[in-house]
């Protein structure tokens, strides 16, 4: 399934095409937030701007899916919740590692990479 950007999320997907992970940061409360929307999810301020983040994250939780949706068999079976060093959490896939629980301890350090113009994450040090 291909994500369909909206006017409000287009900069995120444009960033992904260029190999950058972009989120919004609030000028009022200073927090990074996700998913993209024109007002801060914490303080409702509209003084927000797009920033490119480090792409460093930790593994919060995951499942190893044995029954992919028809048409989605090509994805990594590791569906994961990760937390960026800047704070926001997002859904992703973990790639670049054999999908076993032993390889995926919680809090594992991760780095962003891009597949099909979509951000995914790999363990720090794993080959792209």
């Amino acid at each position, binding site marked *: 399934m291909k994500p369909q950007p909206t006017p409000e999320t287009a900069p995120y997907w444009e960033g992904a095409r260029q190999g950058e992970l972009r989120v919004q940061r609030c000028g009022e409360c200073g927090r990074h937030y996700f998913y993209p929307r024109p007002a801060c999810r914490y303080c409702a301020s509209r003084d927000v701007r797009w920033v490119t983040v480090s792409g460093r994250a930790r593994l919060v939780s995951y*499942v190893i899916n*044995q029954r992919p949706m028809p048409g989605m068999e090509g994805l990594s079976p590791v*569906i994961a919740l990760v937390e960026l060093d800047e704070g926001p959490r997002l859904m992703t896939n973990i790639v670049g590692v054999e999908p076993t629980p032993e390889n995926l301890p*919680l809090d594992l350090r991760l780095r962003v990479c891009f597949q099909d113009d979509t951000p995914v994450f790999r363990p720090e040090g794993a080959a792209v």
Partner: protein
Amino acid sequence: MRMHGGDVAIVGAAETEEIGVLPDVSMIELHAGAARRAIEDAGLTAADVDGVATAGPPAMEVSHHLGITPRWLDGTMVGGCSFMLHVRHAAAAIAAGAADVVLITHGESGRSRVGVPQYGMNPASPQGQFEMPYGAVLPYATFTLPALRFLHERGMGREDLAQVVVAQREWAAKNPRAMRRDIVTVDEVLAAPLIAYPFTKDMCCVVTDGGGALVLTSAERAADLPSGARAVYLLGSGESAEGTMVSQMEDPGSSLAFRRSSAEAFATAGVSHSDIDHLMCYDAFAHVPLYMLEDLGFVGRGESGAFVAGGHTRPGGSLPMNTNGGGLSYTHTGMYGMFAIQESVRQLRGEAAAQVPDVEIGFVQGVGMFFAASGSLVLSARRP
């Protein structure tokens, strides 16, 4: 007249005559079949009903199908706990004089898929852009996602998920209508086929066809009905929501919506945890009752696993939970909340397949659209 405190009663409650695998009944007729039985159970007729609430098809489709012209409608759709919210909204409407007799229906051909709308994903929605492209679409690969974090933070493990299944199967074994009735061990649950690690097949709910319906009216009117002696009273309720994305929960190890809605249910009912004789915790997957036991405050943080493993929720335990076998073993059409309420009503009436002795006050906790929404009810066998 108030919406809480026992001024509003459930006077009719019924499931479809059969549940499970029903390839010869369409979704709308599952609604209608359950509705007719609930209205009959109340000792009323369709002509007495002036309010209709449902989730799934539009409320006017259900009311028209039954020949009811409503003066009050509620189509609140927050997933599987929609019916908890309908009970709450119906009580408010009855207390306000906006409806006299409210019918709440559920019907879902979740297994046989007869007469159901096509499942559509919106690739421009927040989930469609930021969750579904990663394969987080079906419940077993999405609703389950925070579970490892919950277990990790508490020093718990997969055995704790298995213990939930083991405990509830003991109840299901006593229930001829339950889909899975074999007693199982922790090892057997862990050895079942993997669906999405850490979840095995037995840790995921059954997928079934069926329906259920409720009829509510004022306690005053209930007293005059043939079903009056079996009326069940609404003491308190709560509802809340935390957005539609599992990835955006404030805390993946706890549900803000469960905490908010259950706290309001306890507060409006004016009862405490020790007053609860019987508990229903919507269990689409084995981790959900563990979250609920902690988020509702029945046990402290990190104590849910030991509580279940210690037998407290099993037959003879101090807090009988999911006594129909739950979504894991009894039935799960897709929106299980109606069946959790039905079992609570049966226990309070003393009519359950696996009846717990002396149930005076029951708590029903629902969840909808993964961890998005929450509905909580406190029900009583007596009017205070």
